[in-house]
């Protein structure tokens, strides 16, 4: 029954959205005052039969037409680009670069004033409007202009931004004219940021590969080149090779070769389970912490292996963000032994031969 109601609600929302006029006009605060002017003038003119009042009424209506023409010119030929800056975390402000392109711009044209791009509410959104994407362009002098806007995602996963609305109060500040923009943008939102428990602060001694993770290399011999990550110092960048490739690569020497640490995640399958979310949050934060501490982090999600040789840290976090407990499954027979497993409370239980920690619904972590 609940599902039917939700479907009906979604359908209704979509119908209402599609039936909206291509341009929507709503008076501003000042506009509400001005809104009554033509009515009052019209009534007074008809009532008094005063031609001069009719002239003023004509001027008032003429001004409305001029306002419509000018605001339409401000909204026409606008193209929007949206790019996530950095990473998106659930419950935190994520920053987006919003770029406007004035396709009809010619050198010498007037600047555009007061354009606002606002993300519309989706049918499931219960966010207050301030949590949605809002970008204000006070003045656009050239063809392109970019501003930074923020948006908060309530949960992790693959999120689609709602459709965007372009609006302006230009030219007279009495009416807000808006139009919807054809736009689709998806963002991978990482789990909510939490504190790393002390017990997981360093992987050494908790993994079967404890000896390996503490390996610092045997000498200064060149080990190889790899892509630069955000944690690499700039002096490790190989200038010539980076120039040739067009992207930064860093030198790995034997001595500098980072130790590896492996983390495993097991979830309570096919359940929307609160501890599952806590496990993912802590796993995410732990991976980031280990990577910052100088480790190359590998990940097991059930039986799936994500080697640090192939996957960057960000990719591991993307995998965690996209994990859905409803579709999670794994076989206990061939679980890896060389990693530290994180398990949800009241979830799967591992034998003593595995290193494992249990995460409660409140986010408390304890050794198994």
């Amino acid at each position: 029954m609940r599902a039917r109601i939700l479907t009906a609600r979604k359908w209704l929302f979509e119908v209402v959205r599609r039936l909206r006029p291509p341009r929507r006009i709503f008076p501003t605060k000042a506009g509400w005052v001005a809104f009554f002017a033509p009515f009052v003038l019209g009534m007074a003119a008809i009532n008094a039969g005063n031609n001069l009042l009719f002239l003023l009424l004509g001027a008032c209506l003429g001004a409305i037409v001029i306002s419509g023409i000018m605001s339409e010119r401000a909204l026409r030929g606008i193209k929007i680009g949206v790019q996530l800056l950095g990473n998106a975390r659930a419950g935190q402000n994520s920053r987006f670069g919003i770029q406007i392109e004035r396709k009809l711009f010619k050198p010498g044209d007037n600047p555009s004033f007061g354009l606002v791009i606002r993300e519309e509410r989706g049918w499931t959104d219960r966010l207050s409007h301030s949590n949605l994407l809002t970008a204000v362009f006070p003045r656009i002098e050239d063809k392109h202009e970019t501003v930074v806007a923020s948006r908060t995602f309530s949960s992790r996963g693959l999120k689609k931004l709602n459709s965007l609305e372009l609006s302006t109060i230009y030219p007279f500040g009495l009416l807000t004219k808006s139009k919807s923009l054809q736009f689709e943008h998806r963002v991978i939102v990482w789990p909510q940021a939490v504190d790393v428990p002390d017990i997981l602060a360093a992987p050494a001694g908790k993994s079967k590969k404890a000896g390996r993770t503490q390996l610092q290399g045997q000498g200064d011999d060149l080990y190889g080149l790899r892509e630069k990550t955000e944690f690499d110092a700039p002096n490790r960048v190989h200038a010539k090779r980076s120039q040739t490739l067009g992207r930064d690569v860093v030198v790995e020497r034997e001595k500098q070769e980072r130790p590896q640490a492996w983390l495993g995640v097991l979830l309570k399958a096919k359940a929307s389970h609160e501890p599952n979310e806590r496990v993912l949050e802590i796993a995410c934060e732990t991976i980031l912490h280990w990577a910052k501490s100088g480790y190359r982090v590998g990940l097991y999600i059930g039986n799936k292996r994500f080697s640090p040789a192939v996957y960057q840290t960000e990719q591991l976090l993307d995998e965690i963000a996209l994990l859905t407990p409803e579709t999670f499954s794994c076989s206990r027979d061939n679980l890896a032994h060389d990693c530290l497993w994180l398990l949800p409370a009241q979830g799967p239980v591992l034998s003593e031969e595995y290193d494992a920690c249990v995460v409660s619904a409140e986010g408390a972590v304890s050794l198994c």
Partner: protein
Amino acid sequence: MLTVRRVHEVSLTGVACLGVVGIMSGSTFLLSAGAGLITIMMFFVRFLYERIHGRVKTITVHVLTVAGLVLAISLFKTSRIDSVLFVLMLGIFNRYVLRAGRRDDFFVLVSASILFAAATTVTPGFEFAVLLFVFVPSLLMAMWMSTIIGISEESRDEHAYQAVLKLPRPRGLRKLAAAGLVFTGLGFTAVSILPRFTFLPMLGAGAFVQFGGVPDSMSLTTGGVSGQSDTQVVVRVEHLSESEQDQLPGLYARMYALDEFDGKSWSNQVRGVFRHPAPTKNQRDPTQGVRVVVKRPRIGVAAAVPHLGRQ
């Protein structure tokens, strides 16, 4: 170089002045108050973009405004419309001198527009058309510039605000002025087909507010009758077309007289309200092409201009 600031200050001040000029011919009081306001605006136009006003200036302006309000209240009994228009002028004075942003611009423009609407009953047709010819483009420009400046004011960034003020004037100001006049003409043509009938006496001419020069009371010591003979001409009715001068059968002009005398002043029993009795069935529509000239509007007998008719 003409900047956004220059266009804004000229158009905003222009609209405010035109609104005041429109009603200045209403009475001596409005004339002097209007002249004073225009002088003040001309002086303070150079401080229009100060975002922070001094305490002395703020207090002085508010005190003057309150004093003006008290004056308006005291005048309300004798000159109702004058006091209402004076309150609007006080509003313009206060917000113009203590301008803090777009909201004040809007207040000034709305008040000036109301004054300008009131001018339709005070300023005769041709003069009003001349005023309107300047008023409409100025109003549009003022609102446009005000929006441009106001958007930067919202950002609270002083540098951005000053940068916008120094921007060269936007292109298309002449087009805007021309479009304003053209669309006014088109709008007038469109709304001219609307009927004209009194459906609400309260909003009728001379009912809710007095006609200009038609007060509710008259003190003989201020604007009294100079020649008090019965033959004194107080109203002359002219036909606009000379060829039809003899064709005025059944023409009537409804007038009123002040009916109370307290030893000093004449006054009307029904204050501020000039109610017209409904025309009888055998009365025809108001006559076209006739103009009533009130020779001495302050002697206590004035013509009800819109209520000319034929019987």
